[in-house]
C-alpha cells in the first residue's frame, strides 16, 4: 500500500514538474517528457521496476541503478554542454577519462601515493588535456572537431603508457568509494549533483555562462561588443577536460581497475547525444545544464528498460540510433519550418 502511495506521489510530482516546465516553455520539458514516457511504460510493463528497498542504509532499485549508471555520461555532458554551447565540440573526453583513471591507479599502486593526491593528480591531467584542446581551438584556430580528434586518437595511447599496458587493479577504500560508495544514494550520482552545482555556479553565478552563450550564438557580434572570444573558448575546453577527469575517476573506481583500452570508450558520443537530446543545438548559443543531465539519464533509462524487457542487449544500438535521428530531425530547420507552417496552411485552406 505504501508503495502504491509512494508511486502516486512520485507521479504527481513528476507531472507537476512537467506542467511547470511546459508553462515556462523550458527546454527540459521535452527530454523529461520522453523520460516520463519510459517510466510510464515501465509502470505498466516492468514488474518490480519501482521497487525501492532500504538495505543497510542504502537505497536499492532499478531507478537507482539508472541514475547510478547515468552518472559518468551526465558529468561528461555537463562539460560538453559548455563546449557545444560555445559553438565547439570535444571528441577527446572519452580518451581523457582513460588518462585520468590510469593516472589515479598508477600513482596509487605503483607510486604508493595517498588517495587524495592520486585524485588531485588525475584531475590535473584532465585540466592539462583541456588546456591542450583549448590551445588548439582558441589559439591555433583549428576547427574543434579536427583539433580534438588528435587527443581522441592518441589519448588512449597516453593512458596505456601510464599503465604500461597493464590493467592496474587497486583496492583502496577511498578510491573504491568514488565509483561504488553510497550515502543513501549512490555516490557517483551525488558527485554528478556536485559537478552540476559547480557548473551551474560557475556559469550562472558569474557572467561566464552568458558570455559562452553570446560567443556560441554570434561570435562576430560578441567580439564587437568587447568579449574575448578566445579566452572563453579556451576556458570551456579546460572545463570539459576537468569534467572528463571526474567521469574517468568514477568509471575507473567503479570497476576497481584502470583499463586504458575500455574506460570511457565511446562515451564522448553518448555525452554529445545527451547534450543534443537535452535541446542544445550543435551550432551552439544556449546552455541547458539540467536538460543535458536529464538527457544522460534518458539514454540510460532506455538501455536499462531494454535489458529489463529482455530485449537482447545486442539490439540496443538501434533505438539509440533512432533517438539521435529523431532529435536531429526535430531540430532541423526544414522540419521546423514545415511544422510551423502547418497551422498556417491549414488556416489558409479554411479561408478559401
Amino acid at each position, binding site marked *: 500500500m505504501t508503495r502504491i502511495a509512494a508511486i502516486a506521489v512520485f507521479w504527481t510530482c513528476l507531472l507537476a514538474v512537467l506542467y511547470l516546465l511546459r508553462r515556462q516553455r523550458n527546454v527540459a520539458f521535452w527530454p523529461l517528457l520522453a523520460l516520463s514516457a519510459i517510466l510510464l511504460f515501465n509502470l505498466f510493463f516492468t514488474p518490480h521496476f519501482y521497487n525501492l528497498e532500504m538495505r543497510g542504509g542504502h537505497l536499492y532499485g532499478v531507478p537507482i541503478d539508472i541514475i547510478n549508471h547515468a552518472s559518468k555520461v551526465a558529468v561528461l555532458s555537463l562539460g560538453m554542454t559548455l563546449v557545444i554551447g560555445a559553438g565547439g565540440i570535444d571528441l577527446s573526453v572519452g580518451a581523457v577519462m582513460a588518462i585520468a583513471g590510469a593516472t589515479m591507479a598508477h600513482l596509487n599502486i605503483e607510486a604508493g601515493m595517498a588517495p587524495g593526491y592520486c585524485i588531485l593528480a588525475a584531475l590535473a591531467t584532465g585540466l592539462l588535456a583541456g588546456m591542450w584542446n583549448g590551445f588548439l581551438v582558441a589559439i591555433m584556430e583549428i576547427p574543434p*572537431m*579536427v583539433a580534438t580528434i588528435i587527443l581522441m586518437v592518441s589519448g588512449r595511447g597516453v593512458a596505456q603508457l601510464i599503465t604500461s599496458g597493464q590493467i592496474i587493479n587497486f583496492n583502496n577504500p577511498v578510491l573504491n568509494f568514488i565509483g561504488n560508495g553510497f550515502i543513501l544514494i549512490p555516490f557517483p550520482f551525488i558527485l554528478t549533483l556536485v559537478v552540476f552545482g559547480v557548473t551551474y555556479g560557475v556559469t550562472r553565478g558569474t557572467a561566464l555562462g552568458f558570455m559562452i552563450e553570446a560567443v556560441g550564438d554570434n561570435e562576430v557580434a560578441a567580439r564587437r561588443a568587447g568579449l574575448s572570444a578566445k579566452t572563453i573558448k579556451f576556458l570551456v575546453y579546460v572545463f570539459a577536460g576537468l569534467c572528463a577527469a571526474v567521469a574517468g575517476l568514477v568509471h575507473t573506481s567503479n570497476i576497481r581497475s584502470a583499463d586504458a583500452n575500455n574506460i570511457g570508450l565511446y562515451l564522448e558520443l553518448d555525452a554529445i547525444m545527451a547534450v543534443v537530446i537535452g535541446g542544445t543545438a550543435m551550432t551552439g548559443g544556449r546552455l541547458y545544464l539540467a536538460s543535458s543531465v536529464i538527457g544522460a539519464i534518458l539514454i540510460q533509462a532506455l538501455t536499462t528498460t531494454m535489458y529489463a524487457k529482455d530485449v537482447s542487449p545486442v539490439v540496443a544500438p538501434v533505438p539509440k540510433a533512432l533517438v539521435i535521428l529523431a532529435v536531429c*530531425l526535430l531540430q532541423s530547420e526544414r522540419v521546423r519550418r514545415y511544422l510551423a507552417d502547418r497551422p498556417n496552411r491549414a488556416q489558409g485552406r479554411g479561408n478559401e
Partner: protein
Amino acid sequence: MKRRHLTLLANALVLLLLYGIGGVYFKNFLTLRVFVNLLGDNAFMGIAAIGMTFVIISGGIDLSVASVIAFTSIFIAQTVHDGLHPWWAMAMALCLGWLFGATQGWLISFFELPPFLVTLSGMFFARGMGYIVNDVSLAIKHGVYSQTIRNLAIPLAKNVRLPFTAQCFILFILAGTFLLAFTRFGRYIYAIGSNEASARLMGVPVHRMKILIYALSGFCAAASGCVVTFYMQSGNSSSFVGLEMDAIASAVIGGTLLSGGVGGVPGTFLGAIILGLIQALISFHGNLNNWWAKIFIGILLFLFISIQQLLSRRLRAAR
C-alpha cells in the same frame, strides 16, 4: 597543385624515414614480403579510408564505416552459412552498403543535418543491425573462401604471393584515384568541399552529389567488409570498433583537409601505409608497446594538421 605535392612529399619522407628505421634495426624489414604483407594487412582499413577520403574532401565525415564493415562481414558469414553463394552474398552486401550510405547522404542533404550526428546515428544503427543478424563470430566455410580466394593470389617472387586482399586494395586505390582525378564527379567533390555556395552558383548539383558521395563511402565500407571476410575467414558483428578513426587518421595524415576541398587517394594510401608501418615496426621490435603507435599517430596528426593550418592562415593573412 604545388601544395598538394608538398604534403605527398612530406608523406613520402615520413614513409622513407620509417622504412629507414626499420631497415637499420631489423633485418628482413626491407623485403618484398614485408611490403606485400603490409598491403594485405591494411587492405580493409585502406579501402574504408578511400571512401572516407571522398566524404572528407566534400567537407563531411562518416563515422559509420566501422559498423558497416562489421555488419557486412557478419551478413556475408550468415547468408553463406544459410546456403547463399558467397559471390551473391557479397553483391548483396555491396548493394546494402551503397543504399545505407545513400540514405545517410539524403538525410544530410535534404534536411541539412550535421553529417557528424547523422553518421553517428548510422554507426549505432549498423552496429545493432549486425548484432541482429548474428551476435557471435561465425566462421565462413565455403570453397570460394578455402580455395578460390587463395588461388587468386599472384606469385611475385619465390615464396611471396600478392594476396587477393592486397589486390582489392590496389584496385580501389586505382579506381579511387581515377574517380577523383579524371572524372567530373571528382571535380564536383572538391568544389562542394571547398566552397559549397560557389559550387551551387557554378551549377554543381550539390544535393545529388552529396547522396552519391555518402553512397560511395557506404559502398567502400561494404567492400572493406568483404575484404575482411577474405582476411579473417569469418564474420563478426562486434569487431573493428574505432576503425573509423584510423580511416580518418589515414586520410588526414595523407593530406586530406578535414575542413574539405583538399586531398586525394594517393595521399590516403600513403597515410594508411604509414599507419600500418608504425604497427609493423612496433611488432618487429617486440619490446616496444602498442600504445606508442597511438601516440605516434597522434603526433603525426598534430604535425600535419598544424602545418596545414599555418599554411592556410598565412595565405589568408597575405590577402
